[in-house]
């Protein structure tokens, strides 16, 4: 089994096929979207492929060390970034192909007009332990 991180972006990913901002959807469309995501996560839990997942706030802060004895230096809410993470999910699946298949399913959540959003999700493999056999 191999673990993958699925990243959902607020901003920074290429535009989805059905590109209407969520605040312009009808309330029913928003509900349908959220229901799809929840059902999908529940399905993964039942197959034993779900590891963890969280949504994160759009508000974030850049922080760096200020040097010895100095307080941390912060830089306002993502002043320079083009990329904004909306949430993440970790899955543990048998193959890369399966990870792609699942990401595509999640991307198909319904959006404006009840049509699939087909948004771009970022899929990244976890670094693994070195296998026992290497030479």
């Amino acid at each position, binding site marked *: 089994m191999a673990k993958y991180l699925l990243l959902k972006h607020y901003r920074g990913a290429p535009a989805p096929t059905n590109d209407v901002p969520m605040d312009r959807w009808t309330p029913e469309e928003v509900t349908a979207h959220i229901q799809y995501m929840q059902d999908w996560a529940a399905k993964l839990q039942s197959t034993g492929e779900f590891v963890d997942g969280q949504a994160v706030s759009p508000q974030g802060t850049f922080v760096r060390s200020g040097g010895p004895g100095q307080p941390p230096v912060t830089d306002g809410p993502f002043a320079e970034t083009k990329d904004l993470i909306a949430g993440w999910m970790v899955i*543990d699946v048998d193959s890369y192909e399966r990870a792609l298949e699942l990401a595509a399913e999640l991307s198909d959540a319904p959006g404006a007009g009840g049509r699939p959003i087909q948004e771009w999700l970022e899929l990244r493999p976890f670094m693994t*332990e070195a296998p026992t*056999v290497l*030479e």
Partner: protein
Amino acid sequence: MNDTLLRELVPAVIGVLVRRGAEFAAAEDAVQEALIRALETWPGDPPRDPKGWLVATAWRKFLDAVRSESARQRRELAVEAEPAPGSVAATDDTLWLYFLCAHPSLSPGTAVALTLRAVGGLTTRQIAAAYLVPEATIAQRISRAKRQLAGLPLDRPGDPGTVLRVLYLVFNEGYGGDVDLAAEAIRLTRQLAAATGDPEAAGLLALMLLHHARRASRTGPGGRLVPLAEQDRSRWDTALIAEGVEILQAALARDRLGEYQAQAAIAALHADAPSAAETDWVQIVEWYDELLGLTGSPVVRLNRAVAIGEADGPRAGLAELDKVDPALPRHQAARAYLLERAGERERAAELYAEAAHLAASLAERDHLTRAAARLRGNSELS
């Protein structure tokens, strides 16, 4: 109380219950409950016959479960129809469980989880910790596996190759929890090899023992990867190596060569050499030829190119490597290594850095990054 001893009894006990008419899933649940009971009571009150105790307790748990679920009349009929507990050949049951857990209808990850639970007797928590996933994830995987197996006719033996592959998968996993999966895989393969007498099972056991013997020397401080050539050979476990070689020789003598025996032969040649320079690379290349004939695997072709680089010089190795698909994992790393040995330090450093980007494990990435830094003269980083 010896946890391992307890676990060794699990497959036989599940087998007895199934033989007496319990469904696999129900038998497995009952044995898990009996194990928990054993952990609670044995330290204060050890049984004279542990296996008998487990069978009796698990059977009682199973009957309790059946009783609580069925009507009085049906229950009475079931008790009436209960066969007399007789002696059952334990090895047959164990083997049957191995095949069941590696059933082709299960995905590899599911087969591994079920094998560790039903044949290995590990708890769901131990398996989850070893794979660094939540307990609920493994619990779902196992109950799903049991559901998938429920409707299938399980009267025919499965493919022995699938069973061996599942055990090899377990062996190759990292070590996350309190259970050492490599040692667990060796324990199970030892059982399987003894029960089947299959030369390939013996070959896999030999392969695992030979790799395990070098385990302590494979990593340095902080989990740092130490390549074979730089390993401290005095730390290799010579008793395990001797055992692995002996098992392998007995298997090879039966003249039914398979991929695990060939891999074990290569591992044995490494283990036999007093130093990296004194390794019998010519013979290793010959075994890679055999292995390639058996598997046709591109990964074998890649490893063979590196071995040719040692036997006939780095240029010969590079020429072989050109015939291998460059998209394979570790292709860049192998080319970098051969280029370095051919004296092309600049190009080798570039490729090491590229390979580090593609590495799938942290230890490997760090190792390759250090190699690139070393060739670029930043030796204080290496």
